[in-house]
């Protein structure tokens, strides 16, 4: 690690101010950022921890029924507190990494990082969530812009993520054997106005919606509805753990399983 200054503000305003300085960077749970610093792949002048800001932590229910998660809420808290309201989301959070990762890592950190194999991006895109920052609201459809790339500006802080609660939903993650991130993961959510299918881990472009499946499932929410569809292997990730063809195949298998699991 290179040396850096450290601040742990208790209000959002202080955090925004601290992040306004040269080469300052937000620190959530540090589960991604700290290993990067240890490998000396990044050298911010200042880290601004968001975990001391009470208003960024916790799970609550909005008047319209949406599940609202503070940007600095750890995965373990989501797993516990969202379970009654949005079980598929809670289950996803409860299956990220190991207990240490879940007790430290935050939803804001995960969405800001937008790792192409991370789980939360699938939930956010699959739920049509609203990503709220200190300056604006961003629809999930506009937020994810490719591997490790998002709509966030320099210094912009994710303060809350609002998930409309679907009638049915499930996330099925096929683990990469080493990291146990998603080799491919599919989040399926059935809303009154249609079905959303979000795929993580598979595409060179990061999390994406599988629109053919959405159309098929919107008229018939059953695993059989997608039987005739095929996923193109072009633009799929090929690496040690699976070829593009394998990932394309998994997208379909896991989508079917998610539909079945959603019931």
């Amino acid at each position, binding site marked *: 690690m290179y040396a850096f200054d450290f601040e742990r503000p208790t209000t959002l305003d202080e955090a925004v101010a601290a992040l306004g300085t040269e080469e300052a960077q937000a620190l959530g749970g540090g589960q991604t950022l700290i290993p990067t610093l240890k490998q000396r792949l990044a050298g911010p002048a200042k880290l601004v921890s968001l975990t001391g800001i009470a208003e960024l932590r916790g799970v609550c229910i909005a008047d319209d029924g949406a599940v609202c998660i503070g940007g600095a809420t750890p995965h373990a808290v989501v797993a516990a507190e969202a379970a009654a309201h949005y079980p598929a989301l809670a289950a996803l959070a409860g299956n990220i990494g190991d207990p240490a990762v879940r007790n430290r890592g935050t939803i804001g950190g995960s969405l800001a990082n937008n790792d192409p194999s991370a789980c939360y991006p699938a939930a956010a895109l699959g739920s049509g969530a609203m990503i709220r920052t200190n300056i604006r609201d961003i629809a999930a459809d506009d937020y994810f812009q490719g591997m490790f790339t998002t709509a966030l500006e320099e210094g912009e802080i994710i303060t809350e993520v609002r998930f409309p609660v679907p009638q049915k939903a499930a996330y099925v993650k096929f683990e990469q*054997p*080493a990291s146990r991130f998603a080799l491919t993961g599919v989040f399926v959510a059935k809303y009154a106005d249609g079905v959303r299918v979000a795929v993580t881990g598979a595409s060179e472009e990061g999390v994406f919606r599988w629109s053919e499946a959405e159309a098929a499932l919107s008229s018939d929410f059953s695993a059989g509805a997608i039987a005739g569809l095929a996923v193109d292997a072009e633009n799929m990730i090929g690496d040690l753990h699976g070829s593009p063809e394998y990932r394309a195949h*998994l997208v379909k298998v896991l989508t079917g399983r998610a539909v079945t699991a959603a019931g």
Partner: protein
Amino acid sequence: MPKDHGIGASSKRREDVRFLTGRGRYTDDINLRGQAYACFVRSQVAHGRLNGVNTADAEAMPGVIRVFTGADFEGIGGLPCGWQVTDRHGEVMQEPGHPVLAQGKVRHVGDPIAVVVAETYDQARDAAEAVVIDIEELEPVLDMKAALEDGAPKVHDDLTSNLCYDWGFVEENREAVNKAFETAHHVTTLELVNQRLVPNAMEPRVAIGDFDPGTEDSTLYTTSQNPHVIRLLMGAFVLGIPEHKLRVVAPDVGGGFGSKIFHYAEEAFCTFAAKQLKRPVKWTCSRSESFITDAHGRDHVTKIELALDAEGHFQAIRTETYANMGAYLSTFAPSVPTWLHGTLMAGNYKTPLIYVNVKAVFTNTVPVDAYRGAGRPEATFQLERVIDKAAREMGIDPVELRRKNFITQFPYATPVAVEYDTGDYNATLDKLLEIADVSGFESRLAESKARGKLRGLGINCYIEACGIAPSHLVGQLGARAGLYESATVRVNATGGLVVMTGSHSHGQGHETSFAQVVADMIGIDENMVEIVHGDTANTPMGMGTYGSRSLAVGGSAMVRATEKIIAKAKKIAAHLMEASPDDIELKDGAFTVAGTDKSVAWGDVTLAAYVPHNYPLEEIEPGLEETAFYDPNNFTYPAGAYACEVEVDPETGKVTIERFAAADDFGNIVNPMIVDGQVHGGIAQGIGQALLEGAAYDEYGQLLSGSYMDYAMPRADDVPFYTVDHSCQTPCTHNPLGVKGCGEAGAIGSPPAVVNAVVDALQRAGHTGVTHIDMPLTPSRVWSAMQG
């Protein structure tokens, strides 16, 4: 009744008290006064010409004491290789130099170029980034077959090619074997890869060099499986320090699996730098650094052919293997694909003709050397896989095909130069079929099918050569070392014992099981025996721990030394009881005179030895301390049979291990619980190789699987509960304990069982074209195999 103490008892591991409560003392826990810290600057390219190293900026950085480069090591020896293989044509292998720090060229990602020594580790690391290296990148040599083509770039410019050796074994059999294949009724051929593995001991390597200007003594604290070997290699061949001025300490060591046998550049560097700087110099390896500096394991590409007659009797075996040496010859690298591999190609079977060809190749990758099993897993895997394939091709039950060819008469001299002393392969196989509940497989298969899963059963045998090794034999085979073991038994005045052994425990539980042996011989409580190991200053010259040798060889040395103790103690007891030494008996810690009620306690005799007021001083010396060196006259041959049951998800290709059973014949057993643990760990490692682990390089020679994000180690939920049995015991005939060794068996026997099971599952599901899948059997690979 299971025993509750001594040989045969499951005594609790005494070392676990300190390991499990955080009180172990590992090398990194040692901090010496005035210690400085070393950070290595390593090559980031696989192959390159080193045109210059500029250390000026780094030297000027805060806290920097000195920056070392290859120039500092000119005229100093390179890291030696401990084994010289002679090739098919009677020529000795090509043996390149292995400088401590790169000279002229870098040959793999991770090759050390310079070292910064500074007041703190962070300062050393900061300055390491300021070392300017001028490298002209060269085309890397990665694929072994391409490396041997004419015109391929050379890893070592001063060698004639990238071929280390082309070994034939037994060369005299070559023509006869070829003939047997021409006339065989059936020939089964299998091409396979035994993939490269990264050892990943839990404790990364550490070295601390120390030098005392007052006495001119050097000390190296290091994570080693064999401190005396390091002292000899480093002192005599690298730094020119005589052994009496060099002490090597390997305290608690957190796992080795072979990777801590070898002498590494960092050890020599820290010892050298401490002397230059007159300050202790410490280096602690990071996990990322371990991936590119610890010697890797396996990495064989093999074609094996098995010739059979119409009834399925094995007629001949012919193999051709390319074995990756990596960029340099690590300490024992040349022996692994040859003497630890070719000699095991007979397996448990009577095959009259065997010919093994191994081409060892230099590439721009991390050096490869012994890793748990070392050569024997590679032999077992190819043999047990080709037998399964042959059984399928000939329509013979795979278990029956094995039985039909079992060696049943012992001793048995194989056509590959070793003589098995004892064994009963039918007994272990029968036991296996029972504990694995093979007769219940069909109903489990039906149950899996009902859930939409494929199920398969894989069974195989294995044999290994352990108790390494008879020095007279390995000397003929090219070893530049003897492979005896030593022990000094020191009895204290009040009767307690300290046993100083040349074996080294790094997880095996020696402190417990060795004490059981000595206590049992004397008939005293195990807690009266303390085991000391890991420090050349207070243990006799020994060769360390690897090759499942500690109990068979080190334990035998302890037995011999304890026998000397008992013989002398009997003389003292005879004097005290005014009897003839021949009439003295030792039982339950008391000496008696046969046929009388006279008795003296162990403690009376030991006290007399050190307070010799009433003592036969004219006949024997006072004191009670004996040393023995034991050199085995043969290897030991643990053997057994393993069964694995898997489920395969037909949609994703994911394999889960549902059941795993192991029936091992380890000869006599000292501590059954420790043996269970060794087998469990070995199987987990074998399952890791079969399903998860694999080191992969990209086309530039960068290690793709360079961290736990991409290198999959087995975790608790990747492995099942094991059913293990070691009740089939044919004791070793040539060591005093009748033991064979159990440390590597699990890792040797399990990979073929897993792969056999997966292929069986696919075959049963109609994928008849799938005869083999290369390890690791990742979901992606299994799925691809099912796609045809």
